């Protein structure tokens, strides 16, 4: 895990299988998180802008609105947001009250980071597990959008996946400090 000081061994060497597993989880989840983020900002977010504008143009200029636009907008938003959540954690975008935190000693700050990461892991863990449990239910009931006859379970699957990536990122970067620079 990042943010833990006092280690005398270089990262990824020694410390046995657990350290290697943690290191692997960190690197892999960071990479996935960046890919997801790029997908969000280069695909779904621009698509959202285009679709909203197109729908307005069709509605007011040609009097022929897209009936499915609201459903698709909602799903594009959902994907954009969930794809950005883990990366927002790595870029320290989540707001916290820093008045006391910045005045803590190093050991108290580490304790606060553990509490932070525990809160995040538990919450997003609950979300991820519940989303996984929900997917078969949605397949069974064949749940679709309100105006768009398209099954919704794959999007629930995306939510589950993103929530698991978020859990991995919080676990790997418990302080939520900016750790990836401008790589994205």
């Amino acid at each position, binding site marked *: 895990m990042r943010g833990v000081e006092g280690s005398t061994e270089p990262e990824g060497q020694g410390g046995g299988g657990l350290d290697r597993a943690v290191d692997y989880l960190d690197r892999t989840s960071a990479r996935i998180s960046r890919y997801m983020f790029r997908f969000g900002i280069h695909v779904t977010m621009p698509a959202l802008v285009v679709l909203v*504008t197109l729908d307005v143009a069709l509605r007011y200029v040609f009097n022929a609105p897209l009936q499915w636009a609201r459903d698709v907008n909602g799903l594009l938003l959902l994907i954009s947001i969930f*794809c*950005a959540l883990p990366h927002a954690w790595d870029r320290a975008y989540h707001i916290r009250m820093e008045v006391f935190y910045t005045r803590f000693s190093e050991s108290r700050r580490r304790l606060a980071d553990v509490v*932070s990461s525990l809160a995040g892991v538990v919450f997003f863990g609950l979300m991820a597990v519940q989303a996984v449990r929900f997917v078969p239910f949605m397949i069974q009931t064949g749940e679709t959008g309100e105006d768009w006859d398209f099954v919704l379970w794959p999007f629930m699957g995306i939510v589950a996946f993103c929530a698991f990536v978020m859990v991995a990122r919080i676990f790997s970067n418990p302080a939520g400090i900016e750790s990836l620079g401008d790589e994205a």
Partner: protein
Amino acid sequence: MIIPISGLLGIAAMFVLLMLGVPIAFSMAITGAVGLWILEGPGPAMAHSLLVPWDEGRSFVFVTIPLFVLMGQLVFHTGLATDLYRAVRTWIGPVPGGMAITSVVACGAFGAVTGSSIATVATMGAIVMPEMRRYNYNPRLATGALAASGTLGILIPPSVIFIFYGVMTETSIGELFIAGIIPGILTATMFSVIILVRCMITPSLGPPGPSSTWAERWSSTVGLLPIMALFGLVIGGIYAGIFTPTEAAGVGCTGVLVTAGVRGSLTRTAMSKALEETALISAMIFAIIVGGYLFARFLAVTGTTEAMVDVLVGMDLGRVLFLVLLVGLYIILGAMLDVFGMLVLTIPFVMPIVRELGIDPIWFGVFAVVMAELALVTPPIGANVFVMRRTAPEVPMGEIFMGVLPFVLGELVVIALLIAFPEIALWLPGQMR
């Protein structure tokens, strides 16, 4: 009525987490989820933990947030503000404190196309501060005026904070936008008068800027047209009932893209930066909203909200005293929390009381945003002041906070006027209905 102990414990636990530095979204979400788990069992707790983000994440209203954030980011990264500043300067620059007053008006106008105060300060600070240095403006006045004027970005529509409030309280975002116009103009006028009076009394604080010919004034005013056209399109469209706020945001984004494309400032880097910032800011806001909803559900299940409303209503405070107490509460919270945190923490408790006291939720939205403006410039957090410091590193933080003080007093006068004359905020949206 007694406030349930479970609710009080939940509130206490959340505050402990907040003070430990746990992100606001996590503090509220985990308190809400664990509280619901204890009270209702694992099934409902897990269901809420998923269904709140699932429902909110697909909400058509929530689409407004990333789109308006993107619009503001595009304006910020494509440099549309430079022409705006030049145009305002030719008209206002020559009066005492003219450059500082120009910054107020330009921030207000910039706020009309971006919903973010941080973007407003960062953009206008970078443009105006070198000019004010050149004309030997008092650093305290210069930085204070810019940091305070940046707050206009969230009061003059479109405003991300109004959207956030609208989503949280299910209040009409369109009406909130329209309600912010007159208070925004009032605040800008108040700030301008403060600068003018101070510079007339002590001319060395802010000497007049360069004078311009009428020909220069009219030709530079052309630079205002894209901003005015965008504002007219977005806010005019909402006011006339042509667009919903979400549609207006989409049209606004496209409008900025076309404008920047015509000006040749739509670079790949600008586009990429704008999208990146938009996704990150939207994810952060989304997490806070989800956390706030979960916490509010927990409070509702415990009956805490209802009990607190009963207690406060039973105290028979009345509208004015309640609002005065809220001003104090928001000043304290604003010293500890970010604007979003401040609102998301108070809205679950305050809104039911607001409704019970017969206060218009639209008016209260304006009041909350003006309080958020104060939080942006008051120590120790004062996000605008931190951004200003980056633009003017030679001015100590304490100096900037001192420079902001007269504007904080001006803002308090605006709040008093809003409380005394609610029509200031409600007249314009009333014309829409």
